[in-house]
């Protein structure tokens, strides 16, 4: 209703959000390069950054604002339709199956300890109100995009494009075209969007909400995001060069030094030099999920992910052969799947003395130390086995007789 209202006010129907998107073709070359080619643009199947509404600066008076809030609230109550979830199950995941991912927010880094006392620095990622915005068939999305058929029909079969939105937001901030896609899916307006290529056997439904338990503790994931924008930086910061001595040299302490040889008197392409550092689209794969807080929808991931705190990051399953997810919720986790993990809860209730209602509902990797348990005490079995020769004794050659 609101949508039609605002459409009526604007002079011309706003263009479809997908129509005015800027597409950039990436040419992938396999030739080896020195240095690194900076990837500034995300993959082309990602949705464009939303455009804000133009009517934002119109000075609405207080009564109008209150009425508008009321209408928006009433529109909001229509969300949350029942979806048919009979297909979802925790099953074996095939070799060529690709599941959806999550759009998460990095909220900080925390240390955790393993049961043998090793410190692990983890990234804490929050899954905020994730919903599937749209599911597009391979024929449809590759024709709208500049990257051609090869991405949509690759060796894993036809890849559907699933758009996921996160973080509910005030609808008055956005343009009609942007809001339309959410109205179609029957979900609240989302602040951030991300896209994933998904095979047909793992397709979620439009409007479905995604949970942090979509990922399984112990599995490996791939994180993608924009790195911190450092601006123009010198060779020492950007490439980790050593610099030059602090003494006995003038005006060249942090300079890069020689850039070439005499023979071919030119600078080779790709020579590492000062320049813009960061603000790149970077993917890091092979990060282990070690802990999930189901109540607060927070995922603890071992290691670091690209981007600053507060940035949006795309998480998906790792595709490397040995780090692939073998068994997990397909197409995604739904509340009815919770009963399956009951046995582990019973165990916890039997051994732990702390009542469950005092703790968050959390899943830990078995190698992670839980803060509810007492301090670590080692036994003789934990001592490191001497890997070779006993180095406290002198090396004496064995004489063969």
């Amino acid at each position, binding site marked *: 209703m609101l949508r039609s209202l605002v459409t009526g*006010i*604007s*002079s011309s129907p706003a263009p479809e959000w997908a129509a005015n998107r800027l597409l950039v073709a990436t040419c992938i070359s396999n030739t080896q390069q020195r240095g690194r080619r900076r990837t500034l643009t995300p993959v082309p199947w990602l949705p464009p950054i939303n455009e804000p509404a*133009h*009517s934002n*600066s*119109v*000075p609405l008076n207080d009564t109008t604002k209150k009425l508008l809030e009321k209408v928006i609230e009433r529109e909001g109550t229509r969300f949350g339709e029942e979806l048919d979830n009979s297909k979802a199950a925790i099953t074996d995941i095939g070799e060529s199956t690709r599941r959806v991912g999550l759009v998460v927010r990095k*909220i*900080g880094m*925390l*240390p955790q*300890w393993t049961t*043998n*006392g090793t*410190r692990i620095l983890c990234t*804490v990622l*929050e899954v905020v109100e994730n919903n599937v915005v749209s599911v597009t068939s391979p024929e449809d999305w590759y024709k709208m995009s500049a990257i051609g058929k090869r991405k949509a029909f690759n060796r894993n079969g036809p890849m559907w494009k699933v758009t996921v939105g996160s973080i509910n937001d005030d609808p008055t901030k956005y343009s009609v075209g942007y809001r339309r896609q959410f109205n179609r899916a029957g979900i609240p307006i989302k602040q951030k969007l991300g896209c994933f290529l998904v095979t047909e056997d793992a397709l979620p439904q439009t409007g479905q909400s995604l949970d942090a338990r979509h990922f399984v503790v112990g599995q490996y994931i791939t994180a993608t995001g924009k790195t911190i924008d450092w601006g123009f930086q010198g060779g020492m910061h950007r490439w980790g060069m050593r610099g030059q001595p602090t003494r006995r040299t003038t005006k060249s302490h942090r300079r890069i030094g020689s850039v070439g040889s005499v023979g071919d008197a030119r600078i080779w392409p790709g020579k590492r030099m000062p320049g813009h550092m960061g603000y790149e689209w970077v993917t890091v794969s092979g990060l282990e999920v070690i802990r999930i*807080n189901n109540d*607060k929808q*927070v995922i603890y991931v071992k290691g670091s992910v690209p981007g*600053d*705190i*507060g940035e949006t990051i795309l998480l998906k399953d790792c595709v490397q052969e040995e780090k692939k997810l073998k068994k997990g919720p397909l197409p995604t986790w739904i509340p009815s799947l919770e009963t399956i993990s009951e046995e582990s809860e019973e165990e916890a209730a039997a051994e732990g*003395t*702390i*009542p469950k209602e*005092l703790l*968050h509902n959390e899943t830990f990797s078995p190698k992670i*130390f839980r*803060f*509810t*348990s*007492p*301090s*670590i*005490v*080692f*036994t*003789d079995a*934990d*001592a*490191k086995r001497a890997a070779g020769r006993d180095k406290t004794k002198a090396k004496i050659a064995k004489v063969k007789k």
Partner: protein
Amino acid sequence: MLRRSLGSLRSFSSKCKSEPQTASKSSNTIRKEANLVGHIAAFPEIYPDFLQSPVWNRRNALKEELERRDMLERRMNIDIPEFYVGSIVAVTSSDSNLGAKEHRFVGICIRREKEGLHHQFTLRNTIEGIGVEIMYDLYNPTIKKIETLKLEKRLDSDLSYLIDALPEYSTFDFHMEPLAHPAGTPIPINETKVKLKPAPWTRRWEIFGCAGIEDSWSGATPWFKRKLQKTKVNDYEKYDLVAAYREGSTLEHEVAVQKQIQKFENERHAAGLTRRRILRSAAAAK
């Protein structure tokens, strides 16, 4: 048509925009709340690990809450006593590669840094004439026991200069008997002034203005004295009120944390799990 008229309106409104940020009329409630909770005045000193990060970008309410839950759970399993920089502390930690499977170290606490689960403290002692400093993570689960052998403060909040002081200032007996602090009395301040070894030092202590160093200026070599003339002495920086505010703690945060700790304690006591108390202050105890 309407959109065009809107555009003209916008340009008109931007010509004279006033975004008033006016003073508040509400009464001061946070003081009352602090009194109600029984706010510990020395909170930042007793619980430096419960403060917020001085980097504002790293402050996130949800992350801090989860972090604090972990910290409190750990504090339910191990007694972390009150100690300050300058106190003499003994730490017993498990080590899988030692015959006894545990290791006890006694030393003076020379540093407490970082917030949350990252919190670290450093102990220093001289063993057979060699200075030893061990940095412990406060929330490392291999720590079995932390004891405060002598509760006192020094003149500085960072005793890193002990590394350049004569070894007698950082020599402590491993078999030292714990000295009980009489409850309800203020924490004693040890006004020892240490003598530094002759220069060169690891850092230029004379420009830090440490109160606990005896006459660092006369110990400095002429070369460094001359250099001080060229060095900027940023003594005016202490007047930067907002810089101090940016890095310091706020009453709102401390009251909120104290409430969370009290709630946690009460829940655990009610469930009959433990009788351990996390929130206490030796100076304010009755």
